[in-house]
């Protein structure tokens, strides 16, 4: 035997091992790809061999190749084989490979569950350790769910080595399977006080990660952490705890005070160690200082400052100069940090100054990435919080225009969108902006001259649009029109040309309107001719959009020209084409439009023809800005006094300023509703400035002007204040001296920033900013609540068992599990469903995952494929996963249901002698789908896919007011024979299982049949119940013997019985006169409930209540109905159901208030699930 092994290894010692592979690759530098492909062929051969050592070697090499960037997913199954080797050496190789190349989409992960479980419980701690390490890298939601319990057990392993790994991996498990957080948390908390420092630090690590995302749930741990902080000596733990407190203190201000003392202690300790490091750096070891670079402290300093800035902006602002200096640092990381800081430091006062400095840097900066970064930062700084800090928009526009002169920037679109945004939202600036843009258009050749600079030509898009839309402000629209139709324009990108043409048409309309009144003017006709001459060039454009718009406009102009020749006044009609004002729309507006009643967004309008045709391309987003044309003009309200004051200031400023000339009076006419427009200055075009785009104003001018203006304002204010002071001595003092405060700086313009529009009756929703995909959102769980039974982690069982078993948890899940198809549709509509349910649904929505197993196993177990044999599965994979189970159930149930009905009728004949049949029938019909589940089907349990137990009915017995009959279906889904089943329930004070005479209170009841494979049968059990006013849960177990050919094993299955109050009600018909009498009697207590957002029809709603909660309809008038039911103990329950658009109000009366309350709760629950 030993010889054989030696021989085997001699055979393989000439195989390449990892070192040979690495060496080979190094020796084949020129034809590396070829060499590797031969290696991969060799590896494939090796993988085919039976010897596990050869396979492991091959997998080891594959891991290396994966790191080099080769796809090795084809070998996933071999990796699993190697993982399942019994030898640690190979296992480790396998797990390493798995951690490198498995991911959530790898389908063989399904097969690893049992292997991992086996390794986790291995007696060898290193097997367990390796499995945990591997698992941490490829844990999937399925694995997390199946293994959570095993890992929980490992958290209290005797070896700290395992404990710390188990604790740490829990974080990954929580992320993938949030339901495990609550059950595992108490143990995690325990681990905070573990004697081993490694385990302790792992626990702190996990809780800090959790708390970082949802700090409020972890406030209760603060005292514990406080203790740890003062006692721990492990710096890693301390850092984590301090970070945690950083997240907690904003929520609990009292914490801050308490923390001061220990923190100062710590700072002293740290400082000394930092100083020690610095000293060791400076003394001796000059060679080694390279590894921690000298500038590291300044980086950290800046980082710290940015944090302080958030809370104490004032204290940082005094270091402004220092930070600006950092912008000159040659280390990019430091420069970027400094930029970040500046972003937070700006105020109305210093914005212009800071931006000016930044502009200087933009000019100096080398390398486009940094320059682009600067550019975006400038724009970010200026536009932050809705342009809060900009006092002079003319300045901002000129800054934007200056930025267009940057060479090779990629952020043309950013500048463009800023221009558009400002021009649209700041009405007062439009005139100025239009003039600037006209100049820009006129000088378009400066921007487009170099093809490499095409990033910047996006700006022309904005310029053209602004000029077109607000063309009334143009001085010489004809000239701009001419500029827009130059042949050179045809070299611009298509979407820009399209905008040019559209806006040329707008300008044309303006020109016509201007010329309409002028007698004997040829200008209008000349303009038409200009368009007719120039447009054909664009009609031939390769870009469809350009072509279409150009030909459209061309035809229009031709038509107009004809009319002009007949001397018809057309201007008004032409401008009507472009009438209406644009309002900015908030980014989330679309999302907030409420869905009108009765509109099903998921329904097909037409059935889709086939998959392949649905690949329409999205239209380019560029045009979306033009499309939403709202005709609702927005009037902005500006305080008249304020306006007058500003006007005054402005007039003075203009008088002093050589750069301003008076605006043309025509503009006043057109926009009379815009206040203050007449004061918008027009910049003198100075063509002599060298090296600048001609006519571009310099932002510096504005800086100076602004300073002058502020100075003046200040002086004025002082004067005023002096006056005031004379009047009121006491109050003036505060304002009198000191540097000017933020509020003192008045904006130079009437900055009525138009707010973004929201749709009418927008749905209020707070969670806009939360990302639905954030895995941490699911972990926002209240951890202080006591743990409910339903939250226990799934116990070790087989995969399919778990899948179907989870629905048992909690009553609200029940009907979800049984109504997969319907629910999934509805769920799409309702996004705010709790996460728990979503998980459940997903299980059903993705049957392929499980189907995979189904398909895989038959092939793998075939004779030709060996893999599965070596793949050690602890239990055999059950081959019958019974996916069709659910469908089967529903059919089965239908039959049963009818049968049951008949039985019932027979049994209770004397109670229902009157028209009972009819009433019963109608209810049945009202329930549109018969497959609708009964909500009181409280359980659905499966054990190792062997047996299903389903309670499909809990029905009160009318003959005896204290008896409830529970019908249970047992279905054998395995291939084995099941026998000797024993059903037992732990009695509670209130409910008892009725046992035959002579049996003890803890004995089980034997089920009177055996189950051959695939057969199901039904058994009934009678419970005696004392009080029926409260719902109740009973725990029980089912024991049975599984008999297969070779062996028979004893199995146990736990389940829960849920007695809802509804199950104590019995559908009893009632006549309306009797009903009226009952209500008049005054013995009944009333209660009511409102259900929001119920979208089903009233008919359906009634049917649902009747069916699920055993009511019968007494009378129905329009959208109002009265219902009646009776409990087994003779309580009357009356309901009055009313509905008005999506809101259902239920007024109820009953002689037992707590019963009524519970029934209403259950009704509410039924509807909250749909």
């Amino acid at each position, binding site marked *: 035997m*030993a010889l054989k092994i*030696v021989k*085997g*290894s001699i055979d393989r*010692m000439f195989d390449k*091992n990892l*070192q040979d592979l690495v*060496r080979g690759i190094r020796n084949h530098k020129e034809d590396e790809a070829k060499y590797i492909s031969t290696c991969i062929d060799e590896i494939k051969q090796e993988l085919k061999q039976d010897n596990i050592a050869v396979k492991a070697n091959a997998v*080891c090499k594959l*891991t*290396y190749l994966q790191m080099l*960037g080769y*796809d090795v997913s084809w070998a996933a199954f071999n990796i699993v084989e190697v993982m399942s080797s019994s*030898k640690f*050496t190979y296992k*480790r190789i396998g797990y*390493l490979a798995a951690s490198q190349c498995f991911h959530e989409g790898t389908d063989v992960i399904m097969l690893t569950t049992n292997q991992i479980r086996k390794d986790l419980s291995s007696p060898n701690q*290193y097997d367990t350790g390796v499995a*945990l*390490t591997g698992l*941490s*890298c*490829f844990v999937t939601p399925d694995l997390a769910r199946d293994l959570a319990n095993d890992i929980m057990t490992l958290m209290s392993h005797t070896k700290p*080595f395992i404990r710390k*790994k188990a604790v*740490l*991996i829990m974080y*990954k498990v929580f992320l993938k399977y949030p339901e495990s957080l609550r059950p595992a948390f108490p143990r995690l908390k325990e681990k905070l006080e573990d004697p081993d420092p*490694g385990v302790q*630090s*792992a626990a702190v*690590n*996990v809780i*800090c*990660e959790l708390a*970082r995302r949802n700090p409020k749930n972890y406030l209760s741990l603060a005292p514990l952490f406080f203790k740890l902080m003062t006692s721990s000596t*492990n*710096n*890693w733990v301390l*850092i984590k705890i301090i*970070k945690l407190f950083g997240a907690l203190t904003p929520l609990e201000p009292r914490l801050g005070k308490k923390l001061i003392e220990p923190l100062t202690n710590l700072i002293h300790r740290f400082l000394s*160690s930092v100083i020690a*490091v610095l000293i060791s750096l400076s003394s001796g070891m000059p060679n*080694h*200082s*390279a*590894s*921690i*670079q*000298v*500038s*590291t402290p300044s*980086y950290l300093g800046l980082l710290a400052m940015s944090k302080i800035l958030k809370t104490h902006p004032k204290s940082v602002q005094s270091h402004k100069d220092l930070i600006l200096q950092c912008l000159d640092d*040659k*280390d*990019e*990381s*430091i420069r970027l940090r400094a930029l970040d800081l500046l972003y937070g430091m700006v105020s109305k006062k210093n914005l212009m100054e800071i931006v000016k400095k930044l502009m200087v840097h933009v000019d100096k900066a080398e390398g486009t990435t940094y320059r682009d970064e600067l550019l975006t930062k400038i724009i970010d700084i200026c536009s932050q919080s809705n342009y809060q800090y900009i006092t002079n928009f003319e300045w901002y526009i000129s800054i934007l225009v200056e930025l267009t002169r940057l060479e090779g920037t990629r952020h043309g679109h950013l500048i463009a969108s800023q221009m558009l945004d400002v021009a649209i939202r700041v009405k007062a600036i439009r005139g100025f902006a239009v003039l600037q843009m006209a100049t820009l258009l006129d000088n378009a050749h400066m921007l487009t001259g170099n093809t490499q600079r095409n990033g910047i030509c996006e700006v022309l898009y904005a310029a053209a649009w602004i000029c077109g839309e607000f063309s009334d402000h143009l001085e010489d629209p004809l000239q701009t029109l001419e500029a827009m139709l130059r042949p050179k324009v045809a070299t611009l990108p298509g979407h820009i040309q399209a905008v040019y043409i559209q806006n040329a048409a707008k300008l044309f309309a303006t020109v016509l309107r201007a010329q309409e009144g002028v007698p004997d003017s040829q200008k209008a006709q000349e303009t038409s001719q200009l368009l007719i001459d120039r447009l054909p060039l664009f009609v031939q454009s390769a870009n469809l959009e350009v072509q279409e718009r150009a030909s459209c406009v061309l035809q229009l102009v031709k038509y107009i020209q004809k009319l002009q020749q007949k001397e018809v006044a057309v201007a008004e009609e032409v401008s009507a084409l472009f009438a209406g004002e644009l309002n900015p729309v908030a980014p989330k507006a679309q999302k907030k439009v409420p869905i009108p009643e009765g509109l099903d967004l998921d329904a097909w309008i037409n059935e889709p023809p086939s998959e392949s045709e649905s690949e329409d391309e999205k239209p380019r987003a560029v045009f979306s800005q033009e499309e939403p044309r709202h005709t609702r003009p927005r009037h902005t309200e500006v305080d008249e006094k304020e306006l007058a004051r500003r006007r005054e200031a402005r007039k003075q400023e203009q008088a002093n300023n050589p750069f301003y000339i008076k605006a043309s009076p025509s503009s006043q006419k057109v926009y009379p509703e815009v206040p203050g427009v007449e004061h918008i200055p027009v910049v003198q075009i100075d063509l002599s400035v060298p090296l600048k785009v001609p006519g571009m104003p310099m932002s510096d001018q504005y800086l100076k002007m602004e300073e002058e203006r502020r100075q003046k304002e200040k002086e004025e204010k002082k004067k005023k204040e002096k006056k005031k002071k004379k009047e009121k001595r006491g109050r003036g003092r505060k304002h009198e001296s000191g540097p000017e405060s933020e509020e003192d700086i008045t904006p130079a313009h009437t900055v009525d920033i138009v707010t973004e529009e929201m749709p009418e009756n927008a749905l209020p929703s707070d969670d806009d900013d939360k990302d639905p*995909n954030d*895995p941490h959102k699911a972990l926002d769980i209240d951890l202080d609540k006591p743990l409910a039974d339903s939250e226990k982690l799934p116990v070790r069982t087989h995969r399919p068992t778990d899948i179907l078993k989870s629905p048992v948890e909690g009553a609200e899940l029940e009907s979800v599990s049984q109504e997969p198809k319907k629910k999934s549709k509805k769920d799409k509509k309702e996004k705010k469903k709790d996460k728990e349910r979503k998980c459940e649904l997903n299980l059903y929505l993705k049957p392929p995952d499980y189907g995979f197993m189904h398909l895989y196993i038959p092939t793998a177990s075939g004779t030709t494929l060996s893999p599965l044999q070596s793949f050690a599965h602890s239990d055999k994979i059950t081959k019958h996963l019974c996916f069709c189970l659910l469908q089967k159930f529903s059919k089965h149930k239908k039959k049963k249901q009818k049968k049951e009905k008949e039985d019932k009728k027979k049994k209770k004949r004397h109670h229902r002698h009157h028209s009972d049949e009819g009433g019963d029938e109608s209810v049945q019909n009202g329930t549109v789908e018969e497959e609708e589940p009964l909500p009181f089907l409280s359980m659905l349990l499966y054990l190792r896919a062997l047996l299903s137990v389903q309670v499909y009915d809990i029905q009160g017995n009318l003959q005896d007011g204290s008896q409830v009959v529970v019908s249970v279906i047992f279905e054998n889904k395995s291939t084995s024979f099941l026998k000797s089943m024993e059903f037992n329930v732990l009695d509670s004070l209130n409910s008892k299982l009725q046992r035959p005479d002579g049996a003890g209170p803890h004995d089980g009841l034997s089920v009177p049949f055996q189950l051959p494979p695939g057969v199901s049968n039904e058994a009934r059990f009678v419970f005696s119940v004392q009080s029926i006013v409260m719902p109740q849960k009973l725990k029980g177990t089912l024991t049975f013997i599984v008999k297969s050919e070779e062996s028979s094993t004893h199995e146990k299955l736990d389940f829960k019985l849920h007695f809802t109050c509804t199950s104590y009600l019995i559908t009893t018909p009632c006549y309306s006169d009797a009903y009226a009498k009952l209500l008049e009697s005054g013995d009944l207590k009333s209660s009511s409930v409102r259900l929001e957002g119920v979208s089903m029809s009233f008919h359906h709603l009634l049917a649902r209540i009747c069916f699920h909660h055993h009511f019968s309809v007494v009378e129905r008038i329009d959208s109002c109905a009265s219902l009646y039911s009776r409990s087994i103990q003779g309580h009357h329950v009356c309901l009055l159901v009313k509905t008005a658009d999506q809101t259902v109000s239920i007024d109820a009366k009953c002689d037992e208030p707590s019963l009524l309350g519970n029934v209403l709760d259950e009704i509410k629950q039924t509807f909250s699930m749909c």
Partner: protein
Amino acid sequence: MVAGSRPTSCRNYRCWIERLNHITESKTLKFALEKTTEDMEQQIIRETFHLVSKRDENVCNFLEGGLLIGGSDNKLIYRHYATLYFVFCVDSSESELGILDLIQVFVETLDKCFENVCELDLIFHVDKVHNILAEMVMGGMVLETNMNEIITQVDAQNKMEKSEAGIAGAPARAVSAVKNMNLPEIPRNINIGDISIKVPNLPSFK
């Protein structure tokens, strides 16, 4: 969490720790948890290498990665030893200096395990490097920072491996010894000299 994220979505945390040398030849790369395509991993390495290698000697050890490593929450922290760069990508829950110390611990551990580690050790024994790393960082979270503890566990596992190999392992070891001997460019001589990974004995952070 020592983590980088998948470039496409910054919510998935993975850890990747890599060492790049000047010829981008050896990289021990750990992308934890979320799947990126191999191409994307390679691109991240290339760009990271590009970013890191062109930085001056006396600039700081931090680099804001930007989009490539998943947004502003994440940054690269690196240390430069002779020809090797050790780069960690971490998110804001880690202390920057702490990670610098972790790199130090990692390098010292490598030094102890390989007995005077040099670049070629790391190139030829990627699997061993991974095993050491696995004892320090697990699934993107820092597991252990105590060097002695790490070395004890790594040694114990190696011992187990040896005992398993036993008699069957002997011939293979002999052959590999012979193979190594034949080579003229036997790695040891290209030691990077005393600047190598003789790390300054900075007062440890622990």
